[in-house]
């Protein structure tokens, strides 16, 4: 083994000495003991490595990272019994909503909404009919927002005033023309549902969409759409625009 080969091997030798008994290093270490030049090189190398390790050990993660990890995972892991109970509760609420809205939905599909909005209402409808399941479930909307952010799905930074006071049911993400869209379902005080849809503004055709909410009544759906920063939001419920308006104040 020449010095060049010894240096090559010793580059993987850790400064803490954990590798002292590793047979792969023994011949190179032995050579370093015999050759003062190589020995000096090893000493310099270990000193350099120890200093880099020390500097990198001082790099601290963001202060809220640990809490975000624990919250993000918690929301996707629901206890078994709780999950079953929740499923029955949700099923009952969704069947009620589906019964009230299905006739209107099938007879009068929204005609003046953008493609992503129609796609979102399809997904919501599918959730209501229990034909598809939520990606994550939680009664706490903040946990769902954390889950969405963790999964690179669009998520609002701040919920509209009255929406933040409601309990959530779950969230769902889907792709529209390759762009991620997220839906969060909330339970209103009367037991019916209201849904917040979020999409990146760049993906929408109407990029100049104004910040004031644009309310549309189509079939049984009332929708409000507005832009805030780089996101476009749509709030949707089965009911009237007046019912929807109270969540926008």
């Amino acid at each position, binding site marked *: 083994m020449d010095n060049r080969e010894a*240096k*090559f091997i010793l*580059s993987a030798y850790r400064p803490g000495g954990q590798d002292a008994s590793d047979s792969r290093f023994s011949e190179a270490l032995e050579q370093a003991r015999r050759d003062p030049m190589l020995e000096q090189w090893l000493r310099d190398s270990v000193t*350099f*490595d120890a200093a*880099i390790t020390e500097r*990198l050990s001082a790099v601290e*993660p963001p202060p809220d990272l640990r809490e975000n*990890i624990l919250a993000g995972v918690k929301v996707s892991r629901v206890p078994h019994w709780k999950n079953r109970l929740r499923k029955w509760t949700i099923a009952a609420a969704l069947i009620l909503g589906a019964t009230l809205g299905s006739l209107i939905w099938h007879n009068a599909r929204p005609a003046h909404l953008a493609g992503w909005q129609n796609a979102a209402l399809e997904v919501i409808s599918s959730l209501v009919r229990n034909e598809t399941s939520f990606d994550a479930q939680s009664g706490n909307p903040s946990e769902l927002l954390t889950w969405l952010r963790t999964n690179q799905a669009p998520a609002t930074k701040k919920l509209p005033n009255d929406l933040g006071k409601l309990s959530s049911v779950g969230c769902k993400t889907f792709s529209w023309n390759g762009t991620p869209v997220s839906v969060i379902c909330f339970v209103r005080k009367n037991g019916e549902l209201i849904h917040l849809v979020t999409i990146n503004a760049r993906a929408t055709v109407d990029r100049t969409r104004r910040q004031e909410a644009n309310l549309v009544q189509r079939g049984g759906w009332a929708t409000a759409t507005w832009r805030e920063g780089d996101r476009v939001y749509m709030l949707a419920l089965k009911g009237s625009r007046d019912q929807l308006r109270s969540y926008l104040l």
Partner: protein
Amino acid sequence: MNAIDFQELVDRQYVPLYRFALSLAKSEADAADLTQQTFFLWASKGHQLRDGSKAKSWLFTTLYREFLTRRRREVRFPKVELDDAREDEIAISPNINALDAATVSQALREVEEPFRAPLTLFYLKQFSYEEIADVLDVPIGTVMSRLSRGKALLRRRLLSKDETLGNKVVSFESQKSRESHG
């Protein structure tokens, strides 16, 4: 793995995982996101791992694969000519005492990606060359080669930062002669 074990795992590994992610990602936000996503994947799939002693390796491997997957979606990195970095070209050493953690971390992030990942795992102190080979799924010889060349590249990056900061470059030879003269 139950909830308490999971919390223990997070407490034990989230800091080194974040540091590894930071060396790979473009920003602190991306690094935090990669770290979170890795633990999310653990919660979804990792608990199926029967050998608990492999949890650390699983997390680092998963984070690295997740990074590679995301990178493929972005503009591809220019191909790095591995022979460009010859470890024996660097005869001088940066004055490491003059450089703080942020500068060293930044220099590491400027090292080309094929060298950066093994270097970071090496400097996290927790990984032997064999474990690094497992995480990155490359042969042991490749790990040694990338460590050797990666260290040369890191010295080069640190030297340029050292010079930018106006510090005098100290050669190994002059260091040695100073030491031998007391």
